[in-house]
């Protein structure tokens, strides 16, 4: 939601670094290499990759559907298996009780507790259904800017890392000061670092 329909929230990034000459071949190859891999039928805890902005189940990008004019539009999808700490605690206590009865133990030792916790956690994680999160982005190739449709800081950090991993390019968030550097001419830019905050009363 947001980029394709309805109301949207976004931040701007500039893309730092050079793309090779055969831009579209490079992008096709990198997007395919870093497309999303489903973990529903595996025991993996986490998966991150690119899917189509139209359909989160499409990671094949038939007819290079990420290409829109001079723009690359992609959705960053992250699926993660999560189990709440309260559930882990509950099943650990249950298992400890069961073992105490079964083995006639007065008390469960520290090492055994650790072993139970690890085993319970693995079992619950395997049963957990991966929770998906999707974030859209729009990359303007001509201006080397990216709109990322989330103001969530964690998602932004994950985007920066994964974008770098995929394309070997750095993203730099366009906070007002950096935007200002792009908007002013050379002479004005010399003045920019010298200004300090003013009080408006």
């Amino acid at each position: 939601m947001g980029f394709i329909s309805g109301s949207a929230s976004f931040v701007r990034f500039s893309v730092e670094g050079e793309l090779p000459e055969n831009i579209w071949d490079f992008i096709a190859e990198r997007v395919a290499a870093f497309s999303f891999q489903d973990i529903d039928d595996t025991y993996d805890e986490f998966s991150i990759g690119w899917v189509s902005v139209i359909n989160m189940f499409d990671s094949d990008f038939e007819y290079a559907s990420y290409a829109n004019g001079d723009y690359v539009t992609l959705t960053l999808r992250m699926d993660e298996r999560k189990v709440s700490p309260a559930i882990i605690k509950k099943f650990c206590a249950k298992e400890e009780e069961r073992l105490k009865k079964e083995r006639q133990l007065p008390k469960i030792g520290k090492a055994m507790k650790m072993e139970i916790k690890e085993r319970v956690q693995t079992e619950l994680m395997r049963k957990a259904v991966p929770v998906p999160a999707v974030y859209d982005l729009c990359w303007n190739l001509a201006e080397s800017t990216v709109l990322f449709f989330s103001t969530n800081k964690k998602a932004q950090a994950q985007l920066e890392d994964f974008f770098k991993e995929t394309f070997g390019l750095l993203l730099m968030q366009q906070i007002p000061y950096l935007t200002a550097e792009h908007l002013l001419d050379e002479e004005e830019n010399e003045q920019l670092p010298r200004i300090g905050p003013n009080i408006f009363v």
Partner: protein
Amino acid sequence: MDLVDLIDEKRFLGQEFLTWLWWKSEERGGSILLPERGDITVIFEKHMLLEYGEGDTSEKLVCSGLQSELQEARTGLQVGKKLEQARIQIVHAEQEYNFTLAAALMEFRSVKLPKTAGTEGGISNDPEETEGMILERIFLFEELIRFVNELFRLFLKIRVAEQWAEELEKIRSWVNSSVRSG
């Protein structure tokens, strides 16, 4: 300077821009002249967030109401709070953009684009139609950014020049007069 320090140290720039924009929009009853576009309408409405101080000691003040009821926000300015978020409407050539600008990081939130035939149809089964819809939405998002950047440039050119002292006096008297009249 790395980005974290830059965000911290230059936080004021976006907030001063937003405060200046509020004053500028009221100076000529909602009209602002952009050098290459002519007049655009900029209206501050409904919702504002002001802050004072930084980090753990910062105070926040949320004001909501109709345009005429933003007196509390002006009072906030008078005690030295800075405008951090505002709900803004920009109108140009009968196209209306509504968005919340978060000033320190320049985040665009809850952006509502103008309604156009191309973007109202939703996702189509025809890939060409879908591409057309996506391109139209991209154009509108970028058009909004261009408006905000042109307004920001208008502010910056004065902010780094000697003219700023005069502009600051005008803003100060606007802040003070609105409090007196309230």
